[in-house]
């Protein structure tokens, strides 16, 4: 079937292009004054033949799944349907059987539905081919009739190009919308099962609940405050590590370093930003955690193997370039005239830095720090590998805590059926995460913009 589709979606436009171009060339050859080059005539026909049918096919493919699922579920016998506890589980089973993967003995209703699904799928697929062909041919015929010497083919083609560009630009907006909608949608379903005030203010996070009715039920509470607290603790530790190193590095690089040193050192610090976070996570588990435990034992302190300190320290390492790079930019943007003025009064370099430059660059530095905090809060792999899974209400960095991102991942790895509060809780956490990081980023941008106005 895909071969047919290929012929329709690629072959027909190609034929249209060649044909129209030929036609235009013939008109040109017989002396008519063409507005546009033959290539444009060809492109015009090809565009209107191919693009509508491609869009149709994409839409069809996207919507065929959900629509068929709806229909198949509705086609199940009434009593069976009423007895179903978990719609998506049944649908998954029907899909598996239809694909030829049998586990155990599925119910006869399921098998019948699977057979129906296969048949319907086949019909739907061929219908799609037919519709695509019809659209392409229609486009071909309509555009062909437009061909004439005075036809402004180039303008039409450029209009199509512009429209395509606008669509591509809108994809960014669509993505943001998609994120918002999917998070909000699933969160609403979550808050239907777990009240929002319990989620935001509850102190007990134990999301392990029974999935099937025959499992021993854990109680399942979804008070996320310990998770938020854990995120905060690790983010604070990370900032405590990254801020001194990042800020002092930026000061040295802008004010004390020779150009050659700066040319080597600045990219070296940027390397920290390029290392994948899963590598940092493994580093934390392989080296940092054991080293900290040994150090702790030496001093007589007992540390958990996945302490917040280990995860936070490695995360701090990762966000150093955020702080150093943005502080560097902020310091470099302070006009040389201020440095000269301070030096001419007899200030040492460190006095100029601490009393004139840092206050002047403060908004930019603050913006950088906010962005770093936002990054630390949203970071996943380091904490998944190095931090804990159990939510604990503690401020002690030597304890093991869990974060929002860890919980999102652990709730979703493995079984995913979309109705249990367990998986929906992940979306609730995701919504909170999205809103907070967005807020921090907007705040950071606003502060940095305000600062840019001061030196016009």
């Amino acid at each position: 079937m895909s071969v047919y589709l290929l012929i329709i979606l690629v072959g027909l436009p190609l034929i249209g292009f060649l044909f129209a171009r030929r036609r235009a060339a013939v008109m040109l050859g017989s002396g008519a004054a063409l507005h546009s080059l033959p290539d444009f005539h060809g492109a015009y026909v090809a565009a209107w033949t191919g693009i509508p049918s491609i869009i149709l096919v994409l839409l069809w493919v996207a919507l065929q799944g959900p629509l068929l699922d709806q229909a198949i579920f509705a086609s199940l016998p009434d009593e069976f349907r009423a007895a179903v506890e978990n719609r998506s589980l049944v649908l998954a089973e029907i899909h598996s059987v239809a694909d030829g993967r049998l586990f155990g003995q599925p119910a006869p209703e399921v098998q019948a539905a699977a057979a129906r699904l296969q048949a319907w799928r086949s019909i739907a697929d061929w219908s799609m081919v037919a519709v695509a062909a019809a659209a392409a041919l229609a486009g071909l015929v309509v555009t062909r009739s437009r061909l004439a010497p005075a036809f402004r083919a180039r303008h039409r083609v450029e209009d199509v190009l512009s429209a395509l560009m606008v669509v591509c630009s809108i994809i960014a907006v669509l993505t943001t919308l998609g994120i918002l909608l999917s998070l909000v949608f699933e969160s609403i379903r979550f808050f239907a099962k777990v009240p929002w005030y319990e989620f935001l203010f509850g102190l007990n996070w134990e999301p392990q609940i029974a999935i099937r009715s025959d499992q021993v039920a854990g109680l399942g509470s979804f008070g996320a405050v310990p998770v938020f607290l854990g995120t905060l603790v690790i983010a604070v530790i990370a900032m405590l590590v990254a801020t001194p190193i990042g800020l002092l590095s930026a000061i040295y690089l802008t004010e004390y370093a020779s150009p050659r040193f700066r040319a080597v050192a600045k990219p070296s610090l940027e390397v920290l930003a390029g290392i994948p976070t899963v590598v940092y996570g493994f580093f934390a588990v392989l080296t940092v955690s054991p080293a900290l435990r040994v150090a702790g034992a030496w001093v007589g302190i007992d540390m958990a193997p996945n302490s917040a300190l280990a995860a936070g320290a490695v995360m701090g390492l990762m966000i150093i370039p955020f702080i150093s790079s943005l502080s560097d930019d902020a310091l470099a943007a302070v006009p040389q005239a201020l440095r000269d003025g301070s030096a001419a009064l007899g200030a040492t370099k460190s006095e100029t830095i601490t009393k004139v430059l840092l206050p002047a660059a403060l908004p930019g530095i603050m913006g950088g720090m906010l962005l770093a905090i936002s990054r630390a809060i949203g970071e996943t792999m380091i904490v998944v590998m190095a931090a804990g899974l159990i939510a604990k209400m503690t401020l002690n960095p030597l304890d093991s805590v869990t974060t929002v991102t860890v919980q999102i991942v652990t709730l979703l790895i493995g079984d995913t059926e979309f109705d249990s509060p367990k998986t929906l809780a992940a979306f609730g956490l995701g919504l909170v995460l999205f809103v907070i990081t967005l807020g921090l980023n907007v705040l950071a941008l606003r502060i940095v913009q305000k600062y840019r106005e001061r030196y016009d």
Partner: protein
Amino acid sequence: MTDTSPHIAAATFDWNAPETRRRFAARHSADRRLQIYGLSAILLAVLLIAVLIGSLVASGYQSFVQTHVTFEVYVDPAKVDAGDPAKGNFRLVVRESFAAMFPDVTNPRDQRSLFDIMTADAPYIVRDLVVADPSLIGRRIPVTMPVSDAFDQLQKGVTPRDVPETQRKVNDKQIAWFDALATRGQITVPFNDELFFAADSRFPELAGLAGAIVGSFYALLVCFVISFPVGIAAAIYLEEFARKGRWSDILEVNINNLAAVPSVVFGLLGLAVFIGFFGLPRSTPLVGGMVLSLMTLPTIIIATRAALKAVPPSIREAALGVGASKHQVVLHHVLPLAMPGILTGTIIGMAQALGETAPLLLIGMNAFITSPPGGILESATALPTQIFIWADSPERGFVSRTSAAILVLIGFLIVMNLVAVVLRKRFERRW
């Protein structure tokens, strides 16, 4: 006229008093201290990078070689039917041949611990050889196969020999047999091809990255195919065609915000929309690539806009002057000149996408598959998610392999970044 005499304090200030001199000295040492702190901060950061790389290399270098054992296997025709070689009892074939090297080991329990030396997959290795060439039935053939993980660690010196027997995975008798094989020259430690050409396995000695590398490749391919044209088209529109106004502001703000959204949220998006709503198959490079493309889009758009901005207006004006339409100016003149910058940005975006783990985990690209995926619609794993999976495995051999896998990933990243830098240096124009 104003009184321009100085204030008495300032006028009587003795610049040479010992107190003043002390103050000057203190101020200068504060200056030196700040300088030292700054330099130490940079050196500390660099040192930590070195420790990171160093610990990975120290842990992982051994995985680039793998201990093998070579011995003669008699393909007993009584156990393997020439008509249906695949169904032969290769377990017995292998065990008999292995036991033949140690005729004095007769106790069944001892024999079982002797067979531990071979990899658990030994029967399948021999089976594949015989199925490929059934003429081997009835012959004695030399077979080289990996040893099991415990003995690989022993050979590499990771398992200490001098601790009491109960604290090791291998007992004294096994060590004796292994050493006997070594003295007979049957133990070799060649380069670990399997790391690159074999797919994942439950057994560390057989586990490789082939599946992950192919999976990542497919995902990046999908990512590139989607984000490259869409990103460039969007950037061209924003930079060259869109009128400055509310709409373009909204677009810009959106793109900048997307660049800062945590990666795990993109995973949630992929899960809810691509898998949940559109019903696309889980764990496939198609969905992985789609999610990655949404994350790479802002990077490509921003890089493309910068490259377009760098092309001087005089080029555009010259093209307009000979009668080109706006589209033609951009497509024929500006875009080719901006291409090196665009490509550099794209390569960097791809490198970032290669290292992304969280979103791929959420959409399920951490499947345990034993052969590389054949296409973008098959279940797959990716390099970073493979690293994550291996990092969780308790066997000693996986720790080293995880580090090796990380080194492979970093190797890819270094190559990609180098290509980007070289591209930028070679084709960068100074206007």
